[in-house]
């Protein structure tokens, strides 16, 4: 497809989270694509991709679930657009793996009783925006630039790792999120924790893990002077947004700051600890906002850490 000449059209695999705990990601993705006049058609009757728990204990099951979804996606025209970082990673991994391993492919094809669609291109929303729609066109489409909004762009684990699978960006030093932010008129901050794990699905089994890891991420973003965090994964969003208050309660005392232990408490004395609320946005929420989509259509009412005061302060509401 040549961008700019023909209307872009995608099939769409939302995944389980986007129909429930990450509903605002789904809502804003649809709103954004509509505003950009890019077609998006949901794959009918898709299944769960298996996410981390399936491949953790049963690789064949994980591969089969993803292969089944890929073959369901064949029914809908256009490359497969995926918003969830975990679904994206699993679908891409499945294609990569089955192309290399003939024996596994045969087992999977027996399990799903049909061919595995290994050539259906799977694309993350980020690469659709930055490469297929194009950064310059994105910049031209902006109606309300996100002026003065300092954003910590958080990649998390699965968007870029391992290097040979997602083909999204550099595996250690990506810039695709920052590029998009600049096109939207926002100001990406430089910070240390953009590729660190948030604790992922331990939020169910061992929430203490999430509190510790996500606390480090929030602290790092505050230290870098960010107003908010931008994510492209519903699980990262859940951990940083839903658990943010709990993290504050657990790590709020001055001595347990990220650097408090290193520099000692004397340096901290007198200075109140930075405890700002950090709203967590999905990439599609910020992009749609910049495209002039009314904020009522972006699912902000579902977010726990209220982003509205910040958006009002920056005159973006």
């Amino acid at each position, binding site marked *: 497809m040549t961008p700019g000449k023909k209307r872009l059209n995608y099939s769409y695999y939302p995944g*389980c*989270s986007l*129909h*429930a*705990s*990450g*509903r605002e990601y789904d809502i804003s993705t649809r709103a954004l694509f509509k505003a950009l006049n890019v077609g998006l058609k949901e794959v009918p*009757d*898709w*299944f*769960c991709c*298996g*996410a*981390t*728990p*399936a*491949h*953790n*204990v*049963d*690789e*064949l*099951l994980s591969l*089969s*679930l993803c292969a*089944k979804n890929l073959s369901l996606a064949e029914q809908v025209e256009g490359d497969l657009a995926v918003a969830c970082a975990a679904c994206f990673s699993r679908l891409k991994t499945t294609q990569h793996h089955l192309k290399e*391993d003939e024996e596994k492919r045969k*087992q999977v094809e*027996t*399990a*799903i*009783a049909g061919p595995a669609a290994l050539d259906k291109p799977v694309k993350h929303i980020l690469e659709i925006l930055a490469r297929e729609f194009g950064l310059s066109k994105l910049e031209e489409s902006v109606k309300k630039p996100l002026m003065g909004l300092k954003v910590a762009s958080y990649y998390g*684990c*699965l968007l870029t*790792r*391992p*290097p040979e699978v997602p083909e999204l960006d550099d*595996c*250690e030093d990506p810039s695709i999120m920052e590029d998009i932010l600049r096109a939207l008129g926002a100001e990406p901050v430089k910070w240390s924790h953009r590729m*660190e*794990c948030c*604790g*992922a*699905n*331990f939020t*169910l*089994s*061992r*929430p203490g*893990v999430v509190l*510790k*890891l996500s606390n480090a991420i929030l602290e790092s973003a505050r230290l870098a002077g960010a107003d908010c965090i931008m994510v492209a994964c519903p699980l990262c969003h859940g951990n940083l947004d*839903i658990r943010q208050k709990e993290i504050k309660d657990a790590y709020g005392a001055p001595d347990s700051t990220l650097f408090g232990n290193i520099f000692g408490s004397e340096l901290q004395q007198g200075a109140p600890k930075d405890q700002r609320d950090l709203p967590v946005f999905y990439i599609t929420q910020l992009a749609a906002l910049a495209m002039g989509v009314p904020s009522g259509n972006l699912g902000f*009412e*579902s*977010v*726990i850490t209220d982003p509205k005061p910040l958006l009002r302060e920056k005159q973006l509401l």
Partner: protein
Amino acid sequence: MKNKLMHLSNETMNVGFVKKVEALSGSSVRRCFQCGKCSAGCPMSAFMEHPPNRIVRLLQLGQGQRVLAGRSIWYCASCETCTTRCPNKVDLAAIMDALRKLSWDADGPSKESYVQLANRLFIENIRTYGRQYELRLGAAFNMKSGQFLKDLMLGPKLISKGKLKMFHSKNKNIGEIEAIFKRIEEMRKKGEAL
């Protein structure tokens, strides 16, 4: 386990186990030369009794059962930082998957039960509903782990925000999921798949 001496001999060097892990993971275990880069970048190593590089070393020395009995493999977040950074192309994330599968199939000799329970419920949900049904996942986890009060305040908040659905979404082709599970079980019974 702490004070147990490790005896190394031709008998204890369990090459069969290493080969099993290598076959399941598709990655070499023996290629690791212990640079420790995996553990340096591992976000979860602080929670593990054996950090990732030591797990590989234990495997190399035939101490697979020690690894399976510990909780480290269940504390891996599958972030793939180790796989990304390994200079010898040891796919540690895949090795962790293989070890978990071996532990899982042996009905979990590991002490870590919460993570295994969460995984089991997650997969059960897929089999029953085709998609995740988060309310059931959370509720069942609390009941079965005996933590009745865990995240109790969070539930109603998430429901009021529309983030937790009271009812699961329905798939028209739900029968196909059961068929996939059945076919995999059959293949394993016949020995056609691991």
